[in-house]
């Protein structure tokens, strides 16, 4: 690795970690990942129990990997081979814990200054004031964490972590409890701060809206493994695993079995488990021993009120509407075609087609709107 010669790679975080950890329902899982994170936002996405927090804890030094190496630029934080393991206090890792862990007996200012013990008094005051101003909490410097709002606490925790100028910032689902407006304001301030300082920010979330909103880069974690990595656009448009599919907004995910391949047409036929419904999907190499899933976005499905003819789409499925529900400007229709599909429509479409629960409809799905997913193991 030529990290020393390239200034762009100077602050990159390289992580190779193997560790057994306690998954949900106290099953034992193993984390086995290897990736690099560069300056800017990287989203670490995964369902709960995928090992996201364990991974952050390993980078911060709160947990010790069974094996691997963790480095920021030239500095090795952990190396199982040379038995190097820096204590958390010497890693310069800013870590926003999910619970924030503000010190309840200290004021906002004392919290922010806590990590600046090495500086002299005037410098400490100047630096903390500057950071508190960047995160708009200078006006509440003398209040205690119990006396400020949830969003303000998030800001204090951010300021406290960043005032020490860490070389990497880890955020463990810090903003999940906040309303959208508060959240986007905090994110704006964090973004503004990061255009100045440019450090790697590893942002853990299981909220897929965060991914497209924040990520310059996304790493998808599933049961301890990295199943996809890259710019959000690329990852979301070629989903291969179920976690990515949920992330990409696949409201319809069906267990399937491949029953026939048509290499000359570039398609194969899949039967949806528990039904007699066959759909045509793109031909991909699949491992027959693993379960196969097909994901379809609810917005990619067309609805016709009469049997359509002369279509290029290969999948035309007859069914009955079981429920219609309006949420904002989207009408969510559940359609029973032998398997239940979720379809998103506009309220206008619902009106012009006069759709009601019980209406007979035909769903039209292009072959290339069917995404074949396979779990990595």
């Amino acid at each position, binding site marked *: 690795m030529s990290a020393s010669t390239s200034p762009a790679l100077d602050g990159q975080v390289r992580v190779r970690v193997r560790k057994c950890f306690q998954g949900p329902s106290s099953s034992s899982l193993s984390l086995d990942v290897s990736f690099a994170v560069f300056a800017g936002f990287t989203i670490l996405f995964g369902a709960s129990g995928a090992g996201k927090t364990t991974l952050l804890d390993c980078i911060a030094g709160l947990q010790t990997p069974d094996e691997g190496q963790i480095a920021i630029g030239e500095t090795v934080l952990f190396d199982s081979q040379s038995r190097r393991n820096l204590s958390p206090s010497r890693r310069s890792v*800013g870590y926003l814990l999910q*619970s924030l862990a503000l010190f309840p007996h200290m004021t906002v200012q004392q919290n922010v200054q806590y990590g600046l013990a090495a500086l002299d008094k005037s410098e400490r005051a100047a630096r903390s004031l500057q950071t508190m101003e960047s995160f708009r909490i200078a006006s509440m410097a003398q209040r205690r964490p119990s006396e400020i709002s949830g969003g303000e606490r998030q800001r204090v925790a951010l300021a406290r*972590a960043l005032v020490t100028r860490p070389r990497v910032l880890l955020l463990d689902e810090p903003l999940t409890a906040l309303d959208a407006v508060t959240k986007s304001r905090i994110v704006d301030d964090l973004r503004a701060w990061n255009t100045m300082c440019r450090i790697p920010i590893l942002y853990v979330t299981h909220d897929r809206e965060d991914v497209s909103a924040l990520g310059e880069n996304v790493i998808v974690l599933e049961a301890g493994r990295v199943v996809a990595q890259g710019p959000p656009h690329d990852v979301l448009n070629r989903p291969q695993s179920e976690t990515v599919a949920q992330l990409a907004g696949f409201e319809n995910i069906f267990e399937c079995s491949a029953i026939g391949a048509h290499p000359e047409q570039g398609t194969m036929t899949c039967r949806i488990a528990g039904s007699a419904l066959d759909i045509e999907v793109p031909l991909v190499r699949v491992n027959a021993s693993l379960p196969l899933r097909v994901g379809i976005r609810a917005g990619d499905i067309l609805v016709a009120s009469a049997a359509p003819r002369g279509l290029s789409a290969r999948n035309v499925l007859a069914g009955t509407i079981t429920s219609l529900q309006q949420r904002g400007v989207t009408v969510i229709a559940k359609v029973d075609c032998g398997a239940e599909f979720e379809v998103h429509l506009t309220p206008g479409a619902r009106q012009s087609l006069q759709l009601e629960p019980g209406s007979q409809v035909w769903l039209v799905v292009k072959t290339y709107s069917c995404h074949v997913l396979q779990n990595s193991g």
Partner: protein
Amino acid sequence: MIEALTLTLRLAVIVSAILLALGLPLAYWLTFSRQRWKFFVEAIVSLPIVLPPTVLGFYVLVAIGPLSPFGRWYQALTGHSLAFTFDGLVVGSVLYSLPFAVQPMAASFSSIDRKLLDASALLGASGWRTFWRIVLPLGLPGVFTGFVLSFAHTLGEFGVVLMIGGNIPGATQTVSILIYDQVQSLDYATANRTALLLLVLCFTLLTVLYGLRRSSGWNVWEWK
């Protein structure tokens, strides 16, 4: 009676001060250590709660007596034996009141959110700084309780003092021994006054302790 009272108070002050210095690191270790044999130390610390004071007193007497290596070493160093002296009482009382200091401290340390300690370390703080700035301030109610309880417990102890110190006025005769002495000589009136003094003293201490814990906002730091 004044002589016995000042001796008792002197003993209680010295013992609770030693227990504060000894109890803090011990409680900290018991709370946060991941040593496997921690349970063993926990059992030893709690032993004086269940052990008859005479048993504890007997073993301490043997241990500090001129026949044990420790007793001989102490005698060679100071020229006198620990047994039946005020210093001997201090040693015995420290052991006897140890759980009353350590347990409240450990209980309040263990109620501190571990994430706060992680956060402190992540901000570059040493274990020492984390103790002084986070653990001690947040565990203060328990530390205070441990201090007052060990003080009050030392005021009232009897069996251990009798075993180790005997009953020497001015040297080892505490108020509780004095009461016993007065009852033995059938002087009930004086015994009543002495007993009442100790009762009022201990009751006042505990009232102040619980009153403080209740009113003075020990819990203002908690929020959810």
